[in-house]
């Protein structure tokens, strides 16, 4: 019995590892092989370029803004959707999911249709000399858009599974909203929240399509790291392109390691 169980366990692990290797490890290896095929000097040169640095700083700034806003939204929205029963809940949930399913091109285009020269808000913006698209705010907003549901999506299943009995009990005893959230809900959802934030960060770092529509590709101003990769690629500099994209991979890996450390520490404390 016990041995059979061990067998299934290793079989499942084996299948999982094979899938991961084919779908994720090999593409990653391809990126690194390309990045390094002209040697370390070429790699270092591509990374140590002024435009690469500017693109990196824009990408990091954007990611921070985006993750903050979407975390805030995710907490409120998932609370609203799971702790109460109300009409059209499904429509609301689906509307929040919409940004996932929109082609990045269209995601960018809708903001052009609002804030661009052909958009309906343009006369107003022009009056006050505000530019949103083809400037950094546009980059921020579309990234918020494409990563909008991430935190929400992670929180909903957990909150659903947890139910609202504990909260109701606390409310009966007269606890306020913030207190209930802090003392009861938050401990349940914190790992989901972390997952959501990580997903959101990863997606915000790598978003290309939508940003490319609204950025205008102004070098050193509105070019994010993924756009910079695309530009290098189009300039027939495939090695540099892959070298720069390995920065993104490295950032992602650092974030994931940080997550693991936090998780490990907190779980240890809880014991």
């Amino acid at each position, binding site marked *: 019995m016990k041995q059979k169980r061990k067998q299934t366990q290793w079989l499942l692990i084996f299948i999982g590892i094979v899938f991961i290797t084919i779908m994720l490890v090999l593409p990653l290896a391809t990126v690194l092989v390309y990045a390094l095929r002209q040697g370390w000097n070429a790699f270092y040169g591509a990374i140590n370029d002024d435009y690469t640095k500017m693109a990196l700083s824009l990408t990091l700034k954007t990611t921070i803004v985006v993750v903050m806003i979407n975390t805030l939204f995710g907490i409120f929205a998932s609370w609203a959707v799971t702790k109460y029963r109300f009409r059209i809940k499904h429509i609301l949930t689906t509307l929040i999911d919409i940004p996932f399913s929109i082609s990045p091109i*269209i995601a960018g285009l809708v903001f052009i249709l609002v804030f661009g020269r052909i958009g309906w808000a343009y006369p107003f913006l022009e009056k006050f000399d505000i530019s949103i698209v083809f400037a950094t705010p546009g980059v921020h907003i579309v990234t918020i858009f494409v990563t909008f549901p991430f935190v929400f999506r992670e929180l909903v299943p957990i909150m659903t599974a947890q139910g609202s009995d504990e909260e109701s009990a606390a409310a009966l005893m007269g606890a306020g909203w913030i207190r209930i959230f802090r003392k009861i809900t938050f401990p349940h959802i914190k790992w989901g929240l972390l997952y959501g934030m990580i997903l959101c960060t990863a997606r915000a770092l790598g978003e290309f399509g939508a940003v490319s529509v609204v950025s205008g590709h102004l070098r050193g101003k509105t070019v994010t790291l993924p756009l910079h990769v695309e530009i290098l690629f189009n300039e027939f500099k495939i090695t540099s392109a892959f070298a720069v994209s390995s920065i993104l991979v490295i950032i992602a890996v650092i974030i994931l390691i940080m997550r693991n450390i936090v998780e490990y520490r907190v779980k240890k404390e809880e014991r």
Partner: protein
Amino acid sequence: MAKSILFFKKKKGNIIPGFGLSMGITITMLSLIVLIPLFSIIITLSDTTLEDFWQIISDEQTIAAYKVSLTCAGIAAAVNFIFGILLAWILTRYQFPMKRFVDGLIELPFALPTAVAGISLTTLYSDKGWIGSIFSKWDIKISYTKTGITIAMIFIGIPFVVRSIQPVLEKLDLQYEEAAEVMGASRFCIFRRIVLPEILPAALAGFGLAFARSIGEYGSVVFIAGNIPYETQITPLIIMNKLEQFNYSAATSIALVMLIFAFIILFSINLLQSLISRIANG
């Protein structure tokens, strides 16, 4: 405030405070970031007649592209559904070497710029690449075929299912499973009767999101698709072609169709999800 809107009025029998507040913030942000911008699609379409609209969206080549996008995305999401459950399971329940590494890789498809992902996958699966060359011995082509499109879509969808299930599995109380085991239930039976109902809503949500993301994805799929009309052209490419001709109304028309597809899929999954959790909670 949102409280005054009849639609959002909460049903009786709930005493948790903070409804108006959380709903208010949700609706406001949703409107600002999603709804108002999306509404501009409809504004743009307002000067297109219904006839023109129909003609654009029912063009033969476009319909062929819908088919390609939907079938490939459906298969990819199904693959992710199965492997997502498997991966989430082994990552939460088992210990094995390199587990942290595997866990960390899951988000990679998001962090890699889509163009880079697309180029790497194409290289890997073309008949000269590491994996493609193995298959080409049996005369199976992967890059530049529908199989290739499906593989790219699996790639971008991996994190959704895994990361939806993982937190739920981690929270799942082991004692029910242990109790069932003591009572002599088989492992498979335990999984099917106890674990699966708990994770199914999350897994379905992951499925829906992976599917929805796949039909919209452009950057990573376009390199591995051969883009031959009627065969391997995906819908986002058709939108791109319309834009290249400066035809905004045609582009937004097709975008609207895709939006409706996605809405229907996500909506039915949301319904299904709450149905399951209602059954599970009695």
